[in-house]
């Protein structure tokens, strides 16, 4: 069984968790922590930044340095980089080996058409106003782009800020076969227990959000779910590897 963290961070920028905190996530430190937590491979992407082209090049560079340990994902801002995303993302995937894209903002047709053509998954955590859950943002993109696989981080609600955000995430996964959830940064584990009870295991992806959060806690979170061995292996790495292999076919 290969343990693959599908959501970790590397490089300089502003943390996804807080619009005011600058971070410099050291990939060596991340790898050290991940190994200590029993993780074999880590998918990394940049924190928020003004220049995703440079940030994605850095991610590709880290992947080159740690070929067996790290899988790189791109990040793009559909609004700020409008008109340039197809060219940039195609190069990042085909020449630099990045294997997914995180959308910093609501995905546009430009980003989704490109992701569909490249057969890569789209990671999207909607930035929302109070009272809005992930459903508000996901119904249209998930139904309009059934050929794109979407990964909704944090079971739909970082730090379980609202409980109903998790419930909406469960509903989205049930309704749309192209929506997946990752397990990082969940505050209230009972919603992850609901997820493993109610959703097929192949739609749940192990993630830690390291080094923002401690990867040991991320691993323990899944262990506490007491999944049968086959489902455990799928969640811990099998699912993300299969998803990414789909992009390389």
């Amino acid at each position, binding site marked *: 069984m290969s343990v693959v963290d599908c959501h970790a961070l590397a490089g300089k920028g502003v943390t996804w968790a807080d619009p005011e905190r600058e971070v410099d996530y050291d990939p060596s430190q991340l790898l050290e922590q991940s190994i200590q937590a029993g993780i074999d491979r880590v998918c990394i992407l940049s924190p928020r930044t003004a220049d995703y082209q440079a940030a994605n090049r850095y991610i590709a560079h880290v992947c080159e340095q740690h070929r067996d340990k790290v899988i790189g994902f791109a990040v793009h801002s559909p609004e700020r980089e409008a008109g340039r995303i197809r060219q940039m993302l195609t190069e990042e995937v085909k020449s630099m080996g990045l294997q997914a894209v995180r959308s910093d903002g609501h995905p546009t047709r430009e980003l989704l058409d490109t992701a569909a053509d490249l057969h890569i998954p789209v990671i999207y955590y909607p930035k929302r106003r109070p009272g809005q859950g992930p459903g508000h943002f996901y119904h249209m993109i998930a139904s309009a782009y059934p050929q794109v696989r979407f990964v909704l981080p944090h079971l739909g609600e970082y730090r379980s800020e609202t409980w109903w955000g998790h419930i909406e995430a469960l509903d989205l996964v049930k309704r749309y076969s192209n929506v997946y959830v990752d397990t990082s940064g969940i*505050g209230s*584990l009972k919603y992850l227990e609901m997820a493993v009870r109610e959703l097929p295991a192949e739609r749940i992806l192990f993630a830690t959000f390291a080094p923002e*959060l401690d990867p040991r806690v991320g691993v323990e979170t899944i262990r506490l779910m007491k999944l049968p061995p086959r489902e455990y292996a799928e969640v811990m790495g099998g699912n993300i590897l299969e998803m990414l292999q789909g992009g390389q076919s």
Partner: protein
Amino acid sequence: MNPSVCSSRREFLWQSGLMATALAGRHAQGANSVPVIDCHAHVGHAPALEDPWTTFADPEEILRRNQEANIDQSVIFPISNDTFEKANQEIADVCRRYPGHFIGYAKHDPNKEKGRIRAMLLHECHDLGLRGLKLHEQPGPEILDVVAELGIPIIYHPHRVAMFDEIARNYPTVDFMLAHLGSDLSADWREHLAGIEMARRYPNVYLDTGAVVMTRYIEQAIHELGAEKVIFGSDEPEVDCRLEIFKIRMLKLSKQQEELILGGNLQRLLSKYRGRKI
């Protein structure tokens, strides 16, 4: 232990004795020389039915997870109610129903229950056996005077950590636990830093580790303040005590440090009770 309802005070005392003997036996066998106590859990009913914390918190759910995580006891107090007389009675009832497993605290709203709190809290400690107070709103002298008199700790989740300053300074004999290390689910990491500073400034301020997502701040608190100022908590049943205790155990602290955080510190605070015992 069979969690059956005790039909009489005599039966309650007998079952408590059995539980105490069982715990003592376990500690003597070296499982833990100090009982492991979760300082922050919610139990009982509320009328609003809007969120999990205004509906119902099930003590049996907590007991199941405590057993798995090797937690001996939980401090329990009500979920969100408008006023707390009935909810505190329910806490006392649950403590009696599961003897030895729970330590009951009262909860009060300093504004909505103004003028009645002294009498209620004396009754809740003297007659119902509650041994602490949970607050979400800033307490005034009405509460703090009677708390000082009783020698019970307060676990307080303030809107801002800075609100601790005045009460901790003016009531040095009252022990305050800052819930969630200052920020529930690490919503604002700056509040964790403010919490560490507050506990450094005042000898009577302690930090509860419950529902801290950014675990590096727990580690930082222990490193900067020492294990004596940090107290394990979970915020059950919304937050899973098995993961919360893992966040302490993964730090690989010395046995002495771990014992202080997981139960020793709280035991020390609870031993200061000066009120009448049942």
